[in-house]
Each structure stands twice: as structure tokens, then as C-alpha cells.
């Protein structure tokens, strides 16, 4: 198990490295850093001066190496737009994004788990059709549309919840619902399919033949096996939520990493964009790794093998 974990960790770090290199190159292709620093409308000589001063005229690989070396020591540089340290900026914003991701995931599971299990227990009944409807809605509605609809109803009409910002827990309610509903369908499908398979399995028949209580048959025997892939999905979705909340954070002006990424891109703030991408990819890769390890630990065939 330890050897397996170390091997997976090595692989994960390699992936993170590859992602950082790719994003470095892509960002450089997308715009001129020197121009961004010198300012829109600067004279060509000034731009050239900046280019030489910052070493931006050197080969890309050298610049990447330098950036990587600095980053590994925790130095992400200065923001061009906010004029503060990038690390400090990210430290300020990451909290809101983590809270949002956590709340959305909790919400999605709170909806998907009971509905998925019930629709597997009672296929083709009203409860099954209700979950199908929610799944289809969650998937078909673009999540910005749903977010705006929520704002219209709960903030503008009813005035129950704030429109934008991130000062109190109330600011997180609508963003969490928007994102939560968006990621609910894959959970619901996975849970339903897993439960249907588990309930039809030989070991569940054995459990029934032992005269165990229906609760024990469903929860202990069927659910335990049906939920293993759900853990994996939750890990991946959490990573997705950390990085994928750009749209929602922007709509609600929720002051998190996604909103920061959006701002840094519109202001051509390269160091910030690069750092956010780097952090998101590392977090994503590590989450996937953690998920794999939890799964391995849940499955005795891997744990004891």
C-alpha cells in the first residue's frame, strides 16, 4: 500500500509539473507580458526596456525554469494590477472558494444520496421520476442561467438573500445552490446505478437469505459497495469546484480564487493568472491522488493485496 501511494504521488507531481509548463507557455502565447507591465499605449522603446529589464527576451524554457525555481520556494512574485504579493492575494481569496466548494458538494450529496438510493430501491415510481427530473434540469440548465434565476427570485423579488459579495454566510447560499445543483446529476446517476447493481448482487441475496434487517441489507451490504465510486467522484468534483467556480464567483462577485482568476485575466495580470492555475492544478492532482488512496483503503482487495 505504501509503495502504491508513493508511486501515485510521484505520478501526481509529474502531472502537476506538466500542467504548469503547459499553462506557462499558453499564457505567454496569449499576450505580451512586457506590454502588460509597461502599460497599454506605451512607446516601443519603453516596452523593449521592460522586456530586457525583466529578462523576458530570454528563451521561454529559461524563463519557465526561473519561474519554477522561485515558485517552489513559495515566491509567486508581485501582482501587476493589485501591486501586492501574489501569495498574499491568493491567501486572502482561497478561503471563500474552499467554503463555496465545500458547501456545494455537501448540498449535492445531501440531495443525490437519498434520491439516488430511493430511486434504486423503487425504480419507475414517482420518486425515481422526481430524481430524473432534477437530474435533467441540473444538466440542461446552464449554471449561469440558473444562478441568475435564483438571484431574480430570492434576492431581487423576495429580498431574502444578498445579490453579491462574500461578507456573511448568506452570501454563499445562492452560489452554493447554483453550483450544487449543477454537480448533483452525476452523483445521482452514479448512486442510483451503483445501488441497482449492488441490490441485484449475489452478496445482497446472501444477506437477505440470512434474515438480516432490511436496513442492514440496504445500508451495510448494498450501500457500502455502491458508494466507493462516489468517493472518487466527490474528490474529482471538489477539484472541479475549486477551479470551475469562475463563472459563479463572477456572477455573485464572490471574492474567491475564481473571481481573482477572472480579474487577473481581464487585467492581463500574468503572475496572478499563472499562480492561480498552478495552485488549482496542484490541488486537483493531489485531490485525485487522495481519492485514489481512500478508494484503495475502502477496498480490501487493494488494501490487503
Amino acid at each position, binding site marked *: 500500500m505504501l509503495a502504491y501511494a508513493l508511486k501515485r504521488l510521484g505520478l501526481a507531481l509529474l502531472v502537476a509539473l506538466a500542467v504548469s509548463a503547459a499553462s506557462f507557455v499558453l499564457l505567454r502565447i496569449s499576450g505580451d507580458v512586457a506590454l502588460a507591465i509597461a502599460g497599454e499605449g506605451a512607446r516601443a522603446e519603453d516596452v523593449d526596456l521592460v522586456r530586457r529589464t525583466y529578462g523576458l527576451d530570454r528563451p521561454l524554457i529559461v524563463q519557465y525554469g526561473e519561474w519554477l525555481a522561485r515558485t517552489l520556494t513559495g515566491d509567486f512574485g508581485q501582482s501587476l494590477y493589485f501591486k501586492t504579493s501574489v501569495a498574499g492575494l491568493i491567501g486572502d481569496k482561497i478561503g471563500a472558494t474552499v467554503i463555496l466548494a465545500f458547501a456545494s458538494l455537501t448540498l449535492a450529496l445531501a440531495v443525490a444520496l437519498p434520491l439516488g438510493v430511493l430511486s434504486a430501491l423503487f425504480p419507475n415510481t414517482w420518486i425515481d421520476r422526481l430524481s430524473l427530473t432534477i437530474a435533467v434540469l441540473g444538466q440542461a440548465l446552464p449554471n449561469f442561467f440558473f444562478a441568475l434565476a435564483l438571484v431574480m427570485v430570492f434576492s431581487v423579488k423576495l429580498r431574502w438573500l444578498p445579490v453579491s459579495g462574500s461578507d456573511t454566510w448568506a452570501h454563499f447560499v445562492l452560489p452554493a445552490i447554483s453550483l450544487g445543483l449543477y454537480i448533483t446529476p452525476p452523483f445521482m446517476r452514479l448512486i442510483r446505478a451503483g445501488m441497482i447493481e449492488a441490490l441485484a448482487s*449475489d452478496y445482497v441475496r*446472501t444477506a437477505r*437469505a*440470512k*434474515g438480516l*434487517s432490511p436496513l442492514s441489507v440496504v445500508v451495510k451490504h448494498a450501500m457500502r459497495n455502491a458508494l466507493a465510486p462516489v468517493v472518487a467522484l466527490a474528490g474529482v468534483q471538489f477539484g472541479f469546484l475549486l477551479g470551475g467556480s469562475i463563472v459563479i464567483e463572477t456572477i455573485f462577485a464572490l471574492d474567491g480564487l475564481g473571481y481573482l482568476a477572472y480579474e487577473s485575466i481581464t487585467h492581463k495580470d500574468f503572475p496572478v493568472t499563472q499562480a492561480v492555475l498552478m495552485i488549482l492544478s496542484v490541488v486537483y492532482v493531489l485531490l485525485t491522488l487522495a481519492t485514489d488512496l481512500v478508494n484503495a483503503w*475502502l477496498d480490501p482487495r487493494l488494501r490487503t*493485496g
Partner: protein
Amino acid sequence: MSLLDVERLTVDLATPQGTLHAVRGVSFAVDRGETLCLVGESGCGKSMTSLALMDLLPKAASRRAVRLSFGGVELGDLSPARMNDLRGNRIAMIFQEPMTALNPAYTIGDQMTEGFRRHKRVGRAQAEARAVDLLGRVGIASARERLGQYPHQLSGGLRQRVMIATALMCGPDLLIADEPTTALDVTIQAQILRLLGELAEEFGLALVLITHDLGVVARIATRVAVMYAGEIVETGAAADLFAAPRHPYTQGLLDCIPVPGRTPRGSRLGAIPGVVPSLVGALKGCAFRSRCRFARPDCETDIPWRVDARGHGARCVLA
């Protein structure tokens, strides 16, 4: 009255093609200390019969019976909760597939003891002591260590022994084994079946054993019931039935067993030519007639059950 007394048991299955009559009015009885073997080709309704006894039929199935009495209690009248109290407790069942019958996520010890702890309301230590005892009894060495192992760490033969030991935990009166050895190596098949026979005797169980293997039946059956297309076509004491089979289908099955010395080496394993009629919709007359050498016009009418003084019965115009 016998421990288990089944009269005119019917199992219907709703299918897209129509109602499938998987079990069409079977009757049999078993007592403690007896082994009843249910034999017949694939699809003749053996598993449906056993699942009907356990009330574990698939959702699409419905069960009816004139009588389904166990220890004097009519099973058809029991609430699901009361039936659940019997299941695994006084009636236990072993299935065909030992590789998948155990839950991969829990230890052998946990799975062996959970039913016992529920039915007998005893603590863990006491349940484990009994599990160790029974594992030893079914021939598993170092039983104590086995309790902490997971199913994937055991071979198929060992798993089936675990299933047998688990079934015996509560000291059931009736044990139903549905082809318990089909998935195992030939050498292990014989061991397991011999073990089942011994245990049935030692524990005074009523054993209902479903099997394709007539060689086994000849060794351990007290009574045999031969099923064809959802019906019992012949039943009797094992010795009588083997000595003088009265139904052409039984005769065909017996002809299929290779006899050492008499069957030429390398000859193909015998099989009865022809196909089983569809079980969807009504069947009239003898279901076997499309494959029977002796079929004649009156085989198309309803054929009465003919039983002799020794309780050897058959449903055939020739019997």
C-alpha cells in the same frame, strides 16, 4: 405432517413476452434427517422453487400455493418481518456462486456472525466462538485467522465451506442448497457434497439439494424429485427411482450418466435430444412429448399423477 410440506406451489414471472410459468404446481415434503434432491435440466424451475420457499423471489415473480407449511406454520400467512425471523435462522440457504455470494467489503468473521447475532441476540465473542467451531467442522484449518480475512483471500472451495458453515450458524431445521458445487473444481465438488451429506445427518437437518449431478444424488439422496418444464414429473425414494425410473424423462437423464467400464472411453456425454417447450403461456398435456420416444395421442391430454404403494409417483401415460 412433515417439517416442510409443499402442495401445488406455483411461481409466475411477469415478462415482456407474457406470463412465464416457471413453477407449475409442484408438491413435495421433507423431514428432518432426510435429503431431497431436486434434479432437472437448466431452466426447469429448480431455483425458482427454492427461492419461493425462502420468499426471496425476484420482484417480477409471484408465488401461490395450496400449502407451504414449515414446522406447522403456513409460510404464506407470515408477515415479511416474521418471515425474516425464520430466514437464516430456521431455514438457511446456500447458493451456486461462492465467488460472488460473499460481500467483498467485510471479513469472513463479520459475515458469518451477523445473522447469528441478530437472530440469537448474542454478543460478538460468543458468535465468533461458534463460527470458529463450525469452520473447523467444515474442514477449515486455522479457523481463528480466517475470521479476520476477506473473501478475496479465499479459494472458491474455501468460500463455499464458509457459506456452509455460515448457513449452519443458527442451527437451522431446513437447509436449501442450490447447486452448491457447480462453480467448483470437480475434485472439490465431491468433497463439498460429501460434507453436506454428513452435516445433514449429524445436525439432523432436512436438506433440499438442487443439483445436475445424478452421481451425487445416487449417493446422498433420501428422496428424489425430477423436474421438467416447471413440474415434478417423477418422485420417489432414491433407491426406487434409480432402480426403476418410470418416466421417460428420468430414464433419459439416467442414460446420460457415464458409467465407468460400460460407457466407451471418449464417447460424448449423453444428452436428451430436443428442446424444452416455452414456459410462457399455458401448457397442455405432457410437456415432454416433443422429445419423448414413446409419445402417443393421449399424451396431449392432461395426465394424472400415478403413485404406487411405496410413494413412487410419476406423471406419464406409461407409468
